[in-house]
């Protein structure tokens, strides 16, 4: 990409070029909704929004849903190349959370990106977006996961950080 940008830049020196940028945004949280459990159990929200429960009883599924992230590559303003965008991304293990007698942990992330159906915490997945010719090329995907809960007493709202770490590499396509 560097060589191509240098050639294009020298061809039109009258305009200041903006640099290429890459951003990742969290569009929607991963929502497990409200549930009841006597002792312990788990609830899985799939990347497609499906849900399953083990020893927990949800209070309606309307408030459940997968997380949504968008990775966006904006090329330099004077760059006319066609690229493949190679996204590498990972979700670090979320810390266990404990509040008011309720403990929770997140496991078994899933995504709806081809080739990355499952994503263990900390593991890296790769997604290739071919033929990026537009000024910005982005990919939006969803992340599901499994919440494991143990309730000793009381009730609580648990909130986990869900950090997406991602890298994009551009390849002349």
């Amino acid at each position, binding site marked *: 990409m*560097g060589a191509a940008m240098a050639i294009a830049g020298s061809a039109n020196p009258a305009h200041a070029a903006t640099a290429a940028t890459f951003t990742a945004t969290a569009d929607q949280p991963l929502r*497990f909704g409200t549930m009841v459990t006597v002792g312990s159990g788990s609830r899985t929200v799939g990347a497609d929004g499906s849900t399953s429960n083990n020893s927990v009883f949800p209070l309606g599924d309307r408030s459940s849903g997968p997380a949504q992230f968008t990775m966006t590559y904006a090329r330099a303003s004077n760059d006319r190349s066609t690229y493949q965008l190679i996204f590498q991304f990972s979700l670090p293990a979320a810390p266990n959370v404990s509040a008011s007698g309720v403990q929770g942990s997140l496991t078994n992330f899933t995504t709806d990106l081809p080739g990355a159906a499952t994503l263990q915490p900390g593991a890296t997945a790769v997604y290739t977006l071919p033929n990026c010719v537009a000024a910005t090329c982005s990919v939006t995907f969803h992340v599901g996961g499994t919440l494991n809960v143990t309730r000793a007493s009381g009730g609580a709202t648990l909130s986990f950080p869900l950090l997406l770490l991602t890298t994009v590499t551009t390849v002349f396509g």
Partner: protein
Amino acid sequence: MTGVRMIPRVQWHRIATLIATALWLATAGAAPALASGTQSGANGVASATVIRPLGVIALTDMDFGTITHAPGAGGTVTVSPGVAGATFGGNAGAVCAGADCALPHAAGFAVSGEPLRNYSVQLPATITAHAAGGAPALNVGTLTMRFVSGGTGPRLDQTGTDHFDVGGTITLPADLPAARYRASFVVVVSYI
């Protein structure tokens, strides 16, 4: 003459440029040029709300007391939530005196769960009471409820508790033999 051909300087420059371009194209074709990876991160959130299970305990049974009816005629006996004693219809009446007549009462239940949550109660449409010795079964119907939480619907208070009573009407057919009747019924409470 040495046989060496002289090439003008300007042509050497053009050849050098062509060679450089050819090398760059060859490099691009053989192995795609890679840009250095650019990193980014997004801070998402996962959330869940876990609440206490809903529990219900029967505190007091529904009790119609000791009742009778006139020969050849039936009647009804009703216990109402929040009201001590019973009311009678038809030819039914109480067999009691003084304070004992206030003993019949509705059933009472205690509910516990997540504070400030609404819940609902499901009751059977009718309850069938049975007696030993071949006496005919009796129906208890017109079940009514009264919640301590009141308002528009049952709701757990700040401590996660509530209380409700269930009353009903038992129908006595004519010429009912003397017997002691018992019945059980299921109460289901659910978060809404």
